[in-house]
Structure formats: C-alpha cells, structure tokens
C-alpha cells in the first residue's frame, strides 16, 4: 500500500492506494507546522481505511514549499558561488540578469576560477586546487555554508565539479555543496542559476525533509519516503534534501499524472481547478507535455524540464464582482459583471456565501446553479436565473478560452476535470467533446504523487564516428537503467520514454547532443523491512 500526499499552499491532500485501488482520501487545510500537517493527513487516510501504519510500503510527497520560498524570497540561505571556467565566461559572471531583491537575499559572493571543459572534452584550464581551497576557507570564515559549484560542459563531465567539492569539504566540513552537473542540462547560465537557487534552499530543504520523516516516525510508518520532481518522477527524500530545486513545479505534473491514472486516458487535456486558478495542461501518452520555452523561477531563468501549464485566474474561491442590486435583474449590461481574478483562496471556507461569509464566489454560483452541493445553499443571496446563467456562461467562456490556447488539434478535445473546484468545468463546456470527472478527482494531485515513477534524464555529446550510434545509445540506456535501479526502480519496468538527438553544427564528424529520458515503476518492498534508503534518511538529519 502506498500513500500519496500533496502539500499545497491552501490544502494538504492525501490518498491511500493499494495497487490500482484508492482506499481512502482526505483534503485538509495546510498547517503552518509541516510535521503535524502531513502527519494529520496521513493519519486521516489510515484511519478512514482502517489500515495499520506498518502496512504502508512507501510514501510519496509533493510539496510547494520550495516554489513558495523562492517566489516569496523567504527562508533562503546566503550562497557562495564558485564557477570553474576561466578564462572563459568572465564577461558574464554568475547572477547576471537576476532580480536585485533576490541577489540581496543570497549575497553576491562570487569566485570565478580556472577550470571547465571544452566541447571535445579537453580542459579549458586545469583546476587550480589552491584557489578552490582558498575560496572554501574564505566562505568558512564568513559563515557561508551553502555553496554552488558550476563548470563549463559539466553535464558531459562532472569530474572537475566533484574534485572541487572534495577540496571544499576538506577545508570547510560544514559546507553543503550543490553541483551543476547533478542539476541541469547544457546551457551554463540556466544550469548555474538552478544550482544557485538549489544552494539557497539547502537549509530549508533539510528542515522540510526532516519534518516529513518525523511525521512518518510519529505515525510509526516505516516505509521509504519519496518526493515528487518537476517532471513527474520521484526521488528519495535524501536526494530531495540535496536537490530541492528539482521538486519545483511538481504540483501540476502530479495532477495531470493523477488524472491519467484515475481515468485510464493517455491523451487528453487536464483542467485542474483549485481555489485560485485553473491549471490547464496537455497529457500526451500519459505524461504532461513539456514547455518549449525557458522557465523562470522567482524571476530567474532556468532550463528545467517543466510541464507546459497555462494558469487561468478562475478557481473555486474566485470573486464574482457584481453589484448586489443587480442580482435579481432580468439581464446584465456588458461590463456590469467581472469574474476575478482575485480569490478568497484558502479563506473560501469562511468568506464565501455558502459558508456564511459575504463574498460571492465562483463556488457560490456553482452551488446555486446545481453544479455542486456543499455548504449551505440557503445562505446564498436571491438571484435571478438570468443573472446566474450569465455568470455561469461567462465563467465557461473564460475556461474555454484557456482550453483553446492549449489545444493541440483542431476540433473538440477530451477534458479531464480534477481538483477541488472541478465542478466549475461544465459538462457542456464549449470546445470539449467530453468532460471526464473521475472519482477522487478532487485529490488527483495526491494520486499523481502516489503512482509516480522513478525517472532519470541523461545528456551527453556523443561523437558517432568514434562510438557507433547504436553502441552509444545502448551505453546511455545502461547508465540510465543502473541509475534507476539504484533509485529503487523495478528493472522489468524500465522504459526509455524519450531520446532527443541534436547534431552539433560546425563541428566535424557526426557529433550529437543526446538526451535520454527513462522511467521505472517503483519496486514495492516485499517484506516489512525498510530498504537501505530509509536507514540513510534517518542518519542524514
């Protein structure tokens, strides 16, 4: 049995799953104390299903903690930034193009040191070990423990970054090092940006992961803990503590994967309606379509794999702006009505009319129109059918617009409506051929976390004149498989989901940049013993 948890800004959702069967689910307000919030949600599903905590084989958690920390610029560490590429790159130092407010939080402690590789694998310059040691000592004296290390062409060869990390630790044993080769793909600025963001999250990541582990210990759940990543795959909590930036954006991915699982549909458009927004994404072969454009996180350009999501300002708590004097009108003039984009957010349960508040929300209109039933319908203001229909159809038009933008084919699309506000997507929404509303739609994100696979993406430049293409791809496939088995994947379920080759222009011969992405189902531990990964987690904090 598995537990999936989604810790959002508003709600914490949890589900208990046995094979493909959902035994229990819950949606609770997110508490400010991570440990008790997660423990409460897990305890709720265990109690609902009458299952003992020892029966749980794995726990998967998706969280927005790190996204929020970066967007709100809270709980960030000061970062020492070491780039190994000189003399290359001095014209474009780290942090170029960053928002000044964010730079103020993390500091501007830069070391541009010799090192890095050329595209053909030669060194740009040899590593200056004394200079790396000196930088480590300086940072130690300044009390900076979070350190980002990047070097040119590190995704092809991470050896120099690894050597630098050894040297730093020998001078500065407290250091927490983020290495770029473990974080990003080619494109040193974007990869380095991601590495610096990751380093800035070091302390928070350890605290959050420790809280998750404590929550499991509190409940007596002795099962490995996995954390959702932005591409919909899982990583160990130990790895997430070191690479928190890889978890950013996992929420929408989990919703979409959950929607695919709950409906059995592989190709559809998912509309995930929360309290404030409707996130629209495209499922292709069961996975979210990835964004083709660079992804900004907290104003910083990165090149992470992210789902292509269109967020529309319409959710269950969205405010309906209309003069109450017009509630009973026969018709509404153009401009009398405005839908959002502001929302009551998590205060919907106290501020909206059906919950006794005095703010008219999208949910109120849905309840009043018979599309949803919760709260107290008698608390709704008197409203004419014409006005109610106008508001409803205007909300459908807003959603239909978003749907149209995301559509990949002409004609009507199959829609999967999920999230706590899924009832806002009408069955007859313009542009939809069918609207599928699976059971447990409101906790699709937690379902997506629970059923996620382990994944890996490798990226290398291969010279096909020296290594025949088949051999080179087979070698990459082997490396991917080994990495996934290491991460707890079942070898029999290993699958390569994407191979992307870019032949490098101007270079002689047949050189290509190859990206290989592979996934595995998680091996469910057979016995009651926690796998080795769990023991590591307890030692790590």
């Amino acid at each position, binding site marked *: 049995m598995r537990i999936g948890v989604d810790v959002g800004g508003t709600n914490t959702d949890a589900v208990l799953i046995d094979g493909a069967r959902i035994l229990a689910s819950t949606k609770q307000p997110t508490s400010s104390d991570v440990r008790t919030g997660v423990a409460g949600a897990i305890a709720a599903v265990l109690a609902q299903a009458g299952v003992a905590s020892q029966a749980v084989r794995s726990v998967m958690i998706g969280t927005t903690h790190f996204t929020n920390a970066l967007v709100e610029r809270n709980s960030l560490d000061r970062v020492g930034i070491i780039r190994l590429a000189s*003399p290359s790159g001095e014209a474009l130092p780290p942090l170029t193009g960053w928002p000044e407010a964010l730079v103020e939080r993390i500091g501007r402690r830069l070391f541009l040191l010799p090192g890095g590789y050329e595209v053909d694998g030669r060194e740009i310059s040899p590593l200056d070990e004394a200079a790396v040691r000196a930088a480590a000592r300086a940072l130690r004296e300044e009390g900076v423990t979070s350190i980002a290390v990047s070097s040119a062409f590190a995704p092809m060869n991470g050896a120099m970054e690894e050597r630098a990390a050894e040297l730093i630790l020998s001078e500065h044993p407290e250091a927490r090092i983020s290495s770029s080769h473990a974080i990003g793909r080619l494109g040193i600025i974007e990869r380095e940006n991601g590495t610096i963001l990751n380093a800035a999250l070091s302390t928070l990541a350890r605290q959050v992961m420790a809280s998750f582990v404590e929550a499991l210990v509190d409940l007596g759940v002795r099962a490995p803990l996995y954390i959702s990543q932005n591409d919909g795959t899982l990583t160990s909590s130990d790895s997430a503590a070191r690479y928190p930036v890889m978890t950013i954006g996992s929420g929408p991915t989990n919703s979409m994967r959950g929607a695919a699982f709950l409906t059995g549909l592989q190709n559809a458009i998912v509309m995930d309606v929360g309290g404030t927004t409707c996130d629209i994404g495209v499922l292709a072969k069961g996975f979210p379509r990835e964004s*083709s454009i660079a992804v900004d996180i907290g104003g910083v*350009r990165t090149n992470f794999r992210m789902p292509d999501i269109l967020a529309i300002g319409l959710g269950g708590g969205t405010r309906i702006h209309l003069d109450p004097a017009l509630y009973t009108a026969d018709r509404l003039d153009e401009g009398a009505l405005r839908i959002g984009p502001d929302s009551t957010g998590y205060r919907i349960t106290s501020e909206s009319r059906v919950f006794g508040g005095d703010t008219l929300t999208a949910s109120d209109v849905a309840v009043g129109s018979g599309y949803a039933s919760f709260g107290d319908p008698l608390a709704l203001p008197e409203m004419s059918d014409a006005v109610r229909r106008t508001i409803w159809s205007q909300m459908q038009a807003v959603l239909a617009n978003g749907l149209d933008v995301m559509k*990949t084919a002409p004609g009507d699309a199959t829609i999967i409506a999920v999230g706590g506000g899924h009832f806002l997507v009408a069955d007859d929404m313009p542009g939809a051929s069918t609207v599928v509303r699976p059971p447990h739609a409101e906790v699709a994100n937690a379902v997506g976390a629970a059923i996620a696979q382990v994944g890996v993406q490798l990226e290398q430049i291969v010279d096909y004149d020296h290594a025949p293409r088949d051999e080179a791809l087979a070698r990459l496939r082997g490396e991917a498989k080994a990495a996934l088995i290491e991460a707890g994947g079942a070898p029999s379920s290993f699958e390569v989901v994407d191979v992307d080759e870019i032949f490098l*222009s*101007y270079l002689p011969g047949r050189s290509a940049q190859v990206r290989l992405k592979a996934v595995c189902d998680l091996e469910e531990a057979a016995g009651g013993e926690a796998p080795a990964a769990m023991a590591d987690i307890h030692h790590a904090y």
Partner: protein
Amino acid sequence: MRIERSALPDLAFGAAFLGSGGGGDPYYSLLLAEAAFERSDGFELVSLDDVADDALLAPCGWVGAPTVSVEKLPNGREAVDGLRRLETLMGRRIDAVLPIEIGGSNGLAPFIAAAEMGVPVVDCDGMGRAFPESQMAIFNIRGLSACPSVVTAACGALSVIETDDNNKHERIARALSVALGGIAHMVEYPLSGAQAKATAIPGSISTAIAIGKAVREARAAQGDPFEALAAAVEATGLYPHCRVLFDGKIVDLERETRGGFSVGKVTVEGLKSPGHMTIEFQNENLVAWHDGVLRAMVPDLITIMDSETADTITTERLKYGQRVKVVAAAAPAQLRDAVALSFVGPEAFGYETSFIPVEHLNPETRS
C-alpha cells in the same frame, strides 16, 4: 543615436526573428550586452549615411556552434583583442564596427566590442539576416576581401588570416573555431565608409529594434503580436513583405549533420491552417512547402515562432509537439539580384529551383 538599455531586449527579439532560424539564441548576447552597458557610458548607433567615406569600419561577430556558445562563454577580451590587432595590421584606428550578420546572437555582439573600443556601431550589417557561412556576406558578393581577418578566443589565442580567396578564408576560420573549442570571435571584411555605403545592408539594426519594440508593445496591449510583427517588418521598406504562412504544430523533425552543418527538415501539421508545411534547413531555414507547393525560399526569411509568445525558435531548439507559426519575409533587395542569388539563392544551397520571391508565391496570404 544613443541606444537605451531598454532597446537591447527589443534588438535581441528582432535579431532572433531576422536570423531565419539561425545565428543562435540571442539570450546570452543580450545578457552580455546588458552587462557591457552597465560598465560603459552607453551604446551609440550611427546611420550609415553619417559615416565618413574614408572611415575604417570593422564587421565582427562570433563563428562557431550555437550549442557550444551556451556553455563556453566569452572572456570579454576576444573582440577587443581582434579589433586592436586589425588596427595594427591596417596601421590606423578603427572608426566604427558593425555586425557581420544582424540575425541571431551576432546582431548584438558588436555593441559590446564598440563600448570597449569607445567607437559607435553603424546601423547596417553584412547579411540582412543570418547565413551559415562567411562568404555569403554581401561584402564577398560585391567583391571585397575578407582579409586581413583576425580570429580570437577566450584563452587569448589570436590568429590572423591572410588570403585573397574568401572561400578559403571561410574554411580556415571554420577550422580555427573548431580548434579553439567550437566558438571564436572573428573580425573580417575590413572596409571603408564608402565601401560600406555601396554594399552593406542599411538600417538593419534599427529595423530589428523596431520589430522588437512593436511586438513588446502589442503584447503589453494584449494585441496580436504577429500582426504587430508583420507591420513592423514591412514598415522600414528593408523587408517589404511579411506574412504568417502557416499555423500548426510540429509533428516530425529530422536532423543530421552533413558537411559540418546541421541539416534537416521539420514538418508542421495545420491547426488553424489546412494540410502540412515542410521546412528544410541548413542551420537557417531554407525552403518552405505547403502540401508540396513552394511557399518561401532562401534568401527570403523563414522564421518559426512560438504561436503564443511569438518568440523565435532557432533550428537547434525545434522540438516535436511545439505549436508554431511559420512567418516569411522578403529579403532585402540587395540579396535578390542575379549576382547575389548565385551566392545565397536556392541554387547555392543545392536546390534545383530558381528563386521566386515570397510575395509572388503568396499573393493572397494575410497574417
């Protein structure tokens, strides 16, 4: 004319469009230009008309693989090293610089060099777009010599190329860039103000800025960025015709390396347009067919853009599933005469068809 900092993203956007899919993503060039802007007293752009006939002008830019340029970043000394050596070779000071090609990252590069050298950038370039090889520059087409030419790299290495054969110059420069790690800075085709007035593509930098500005303003006003783009491209008369040819989604992509170039074909399936559009490229997009019917060909510009944001997608960033619009624009007149077409027309890229202007292939198309 002083270039404001706010004009730099506009220039990057316009240069990306004029790159016709090639020339590399200008994002890093933009960051470099912004960093250089902060360090300098600002950038100065002068009209080609205002350049003295006896001025010495130096076209410059980066030569190499776009994929390398996003990993091995410049040191910052490369352009100045090359320009100073050119001054020594020519026995006089350089009066101004210009981009060898406006398209892609090279459209911004000369501003950084100019700021360091304390000279202005001339509002013109050598290609009016991007091309894969140096000898496709208008300066070669009009019979000027590429040499003396100086190739420099981040490590401080400097090579002077002296040959009176511009094709040989291109081959040597290409080999040097590979030896230097896949990317190098090159100063080439040094020319007088009078020669530039007779040959260069005039006004291409200010046109690129105007294109970027128009699209930025259209986005801010929630307008159609493609309408704004087409209007701005046509406005200066340099690119007299611009239309969206096709609207769809990438359903097939073939790419391989041949003769040191990225050669391939992309197929776009219609979403709002019927049928399929196929585009062949060699670093830059070369020819576009709609269900087998020719719709645009080199040297006219063919640019594939994100259908939502109107951002240019360079050929190395094309990806299965992307939703795109294919936009074509008439090349500057200088590239369309018989002599120029023998260097940069479809036959020069191995096609058997003769050049037909995009406005003749698409008389009715509206954006």
